[in-house]
C-alpha cells in the first residue's frame, strides 16, 4: 500500500513539475486493478511499471483535458474476491470513469460483469483468454488474444520448418494455459497437422519426464506447449535431458514469451518458437526508446506485459482526450475509434472491442538467450 500511495504521489508530483498549468487542476483519475502482491505479482508489477512509465510521458506532454492523468491502483493479489472488491471500490467509491486490468482472465470473468452493470469501460491489457470481450459491451482488451497469435506461429512453423506431426503439452490447472491449449488445438486442426499425443501437467509440477519420454517415443516434428514460465522452462530442460533432438522445436504460447525462460532453461531454451506482437529486441525506434527508458527507470528488462500496458495507457489517454470529458460513456465511445501506433505496432479496436490489427505479430525464436525473428 505504501508503494501504491507513493506511486500516486509520484505521479501527481511528476505532473506538477512537468506540466505547470495542468498541475493546478485536480487530476483525472482512472482506476487499475492488478496483482501487486502474492505469488503472481510479477505480472501485475510489470504491468504497473508499464503504466507508470507511460503516465509520466503523458503528463510530461500536458496530461489530458488540461489536467494531469492519475491512476488509482488496487491490488487484487490474484484473488477473484479481492479483485471484485477493488472494482466496486473504484466504481462506487472513487467514481473512476475507466478501469485498467485486471491482470488475469479469471479475474476479468468475475469483475467484467460489474463494470458492464455500471457501464464503466474496463480495459484488459493481459487477459488473453477466449470470451473476455463477450462479457459485455464495456469490456475491451488491448492484448491480442491467443487465438490471433497462435495460428500465425503454427502456420509459420509449418511453412518454414516443415512441421507436420506435433505433440501437445499444456498446463491443465490454470485458466490461462488451458485456454491457450484450446486455441492451439483448434489451430492445429485447421492447419491439418497431426497430433501424436496430448499431455497435461500441473503449473507447479517440476517433473515432466514421464510425458516427454512418451513424446520422444512418438517422434513428433515439434512439441506445442501451453505453459507459464516455470513449467515451460522445466519442460525445455527435461526435453534436453531426455535427449529429444534440438530439431524438434518447442512451439510456445504467450506464456513462453518471457525473458525468464532463458534465465532458467539457458541453452535448453534455444530454438523455442513463439509468436508475439512484441519482443524486447524489436528493432523499431519507439520500442528501443521504451526499452531504454524502462531499463533506466526500473533497472530491469521489460516484458510483454509491461509493453502492452505501456501502449494501453497511451490508447486510454487518447480516448479520454477524444471524449472531451472524464465521462464513462463518452470514453467508451471514443475508445472504439482510437488509432495508436505504439511499441506493439499499429493498434485499433474491432467492433467487438478486441485488437483489430494482427499485422504486428511476428514469429520469434530463442537463440543464445535472446529472441529474434525466425528467418
Amino acid at each position, binding site marked *: 500500500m505504501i508503494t501504491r500511495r507513493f506511486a500516486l504521489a509520484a505521479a501527481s508530483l511528476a505532473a506538477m513539475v512537468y506540466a505547470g498549468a495542468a498541475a493546478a487542476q485536480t487530476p483525472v483519475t482512472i482506476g487499475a486493478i492488478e496483482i501487486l502482491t*502474492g*505469488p*503472481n*505479482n*510479477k505480472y501485475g508489477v510489470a504491468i504497473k511499471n508499464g503504466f507508470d512509465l507511460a503516465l509520466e510521458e503523458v503528463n510530461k506532454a500536458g496530461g489530458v483535458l488540461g489536467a494531469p492523468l492519475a491512476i488509482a491502483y488496487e491490488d487484487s493479489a490474484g484473488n477473484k474476491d479481492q479483485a471484485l472488491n477493488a472494482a466496486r471500490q473504484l466504481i462506487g467509491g472513487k467514481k473512476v470513469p475507466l478501469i485498467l486490468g485486471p491482470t488475469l482472465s479469471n479475474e476479468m470473468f468475475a469483475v467484467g460483469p460489474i463494470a458492464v452493470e455500471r457501464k464503466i469501460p474496463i480495459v484488459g491489457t493481459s487477459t488473453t483468454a477466449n470470451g473476455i470481450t463477450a462479457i459485455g459491451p464495456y469490456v475491451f482488451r488491448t492484448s491480442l488474444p491467443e487465438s490471433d497469435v497462435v495460428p500465425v506461429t503454427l502456420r509459420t512453423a509449418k511453412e518454414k520448418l516443415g512441421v507436420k506431426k506435433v505433440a501437445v503439452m499444456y498446463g*491443465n490447472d490454470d485458466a490461462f494455459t488451458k485456454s491457450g491449449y484450446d486455441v492451439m488445438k483448434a489451430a492445429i486442426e485447421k492447419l491439418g497437422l497431426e497430433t501424436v499425443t496430448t*499431455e*497435461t*501437467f*500441473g503449473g*507447479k*509440477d*517440476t*517433473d515432466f*519426464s*514421464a*510425458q516427454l*519420454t*512418451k513424446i*520422444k*517415443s512418438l517422434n513428433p516434428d515439434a512439441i506445442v506447449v501451453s505453459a507459464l*514460465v*516455470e513449467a515451460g*522452462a*522445466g519442460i525445455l*530442460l527435461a526435453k534436453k*535431458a*531426455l*535427449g529429444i533432438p534440438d530439431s524438434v522445436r518447442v512451439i510456445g504460447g504467450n506464456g513462453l514469451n518471457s525473458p*525468464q525462460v532463458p*534465465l*532458467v*532453461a*539457458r541453452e535448453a531454451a534455444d530454438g523455442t518458437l513463439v509468436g508475439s506482437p512484441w519482443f524486447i529486441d524489436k528493432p523499431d525506434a519507439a520500442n528501443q526508446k521504451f526499452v531504454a527508458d524502462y531499463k533506466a527507470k526500473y533497472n530491469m528488462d521489460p516484458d510483454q506485459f509491461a509493453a502492452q500496458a505501456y501502449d494501453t495507457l497511451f490508447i486510454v489517454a487518447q480516448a479520454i482526450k477524444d471524449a472531451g470529458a472524464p465521462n464513462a460513456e463518452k470514453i467508451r465511445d471514443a475508445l472504439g475509434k482510437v488509432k495508436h501506433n505504439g511499441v506493439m505496432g499499429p493498434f485499433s479496436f474491432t467492433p467487438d472491442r478486441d485488437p483489430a490489427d494482427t499485422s504486428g505479430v511476428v514469429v520469434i525464436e530463442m537463440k543464445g538467450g535472446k529472441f529474434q525473428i525466425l528467418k
Partner: protein
Amino acid sequence: MFAQQLVNGLVVGSTYALFALGFTLMFGVLGVINLTYGFYLSVGAFLALFATQHGVSIWLALPLAALASGCVAVLIDGLLLTPLRRAKAPELASLMVTLGATLLLYSLANAALSTDIRRFPPGVIDANALEIAGIRITMTQCLIIAAAGIIVSVLLWVMNGARIGLGLRALAERPDAAALMGVNAGALVRLVSLASGTLAGASGVLIGLNYNAIQPYMGEVMMLKGFAVIILGGLGDIRGALVAGLVVGMLETLTAGYVASSWKDAVGFVLLVLTLWIRPSGLFGRLAVKRA
C-alpha cells in the same frame, strides 16, 4: 521406452522417499505432524543456491546447506512445539501451530525472495546425461537414488541397532517414561529435529539440482505428495516411507506414460484414501496408536 519410464519413476520415487523420510521420522519419534517440514526443503535449496553463487563447490554447499536447514528445524521446533509439549497440548494443537507457521514462513519467504524460479549457476554439477542402452540418466539422478537407499539403511540401523535408537524408541512410545529412564528427552527431540531438518535440506538441494527449479514454495508442493507417501507407508515407518515413495513415484510415472497424464497427480491421493479405507496402518502395518 518402458525401461526409460521405469528409470523416470525410480528417480521421482526416490525424490519422494528422500523427502518423506525426515517427515515420517519426525512423526515417528516426536509424534507430531510438523507441516513446516516442507519449508526446510526450500531453506536447503536456497542456501545451497546462494553458496554456489558465491563460488562454493556444490559438494561443500550440499552438506552445509542441509545442516543449516537442520538448525532452522531445531530453532522452529524450539519456538513452536516445545511450549506445546511442555503444556501437554493435544496433538492437533501442534498440527495447527505448524500449519500457521507454514503459511507465515512461505509468505515471508515469497516476499523476501520473490516467486521467480531460479537455478544453480552453470557447471556446479555435470548436467549431461549418461546413456546406457538407450536409457538416459543424469549424475544428479543417480545421486538421488543412491541417497534414498543409503539414508534409509542408516536410519534403520540407528533406530534398530544403535544405542541411541533405544532412547529414540523409548521417547516415541512413552515420552514420560523415557524421561524417568534417564533419557534426555530435550536433547533427543533436538537431535531428531536436526536430523529430519537436515534430510529435508539435503533433499531440497538434490531436487533443486535435478529439476533446476528453486522457488520458495517448492517445499509446499512436495508437502502434499509427502502426506500421501507417509500415510501409505504408515505414519512413522521409515522402511514404509521408502517403499511408499517409490510406489507413488512409479505409479505416477506409469500413469502419465500409459494412462493419462491428467490423472498423474491424483495417484498419490487416491492411494491415500484407499490406504485409510483398507489399511490405515500403512504398507507394513505398524499403526501409530493413540496414546491414552
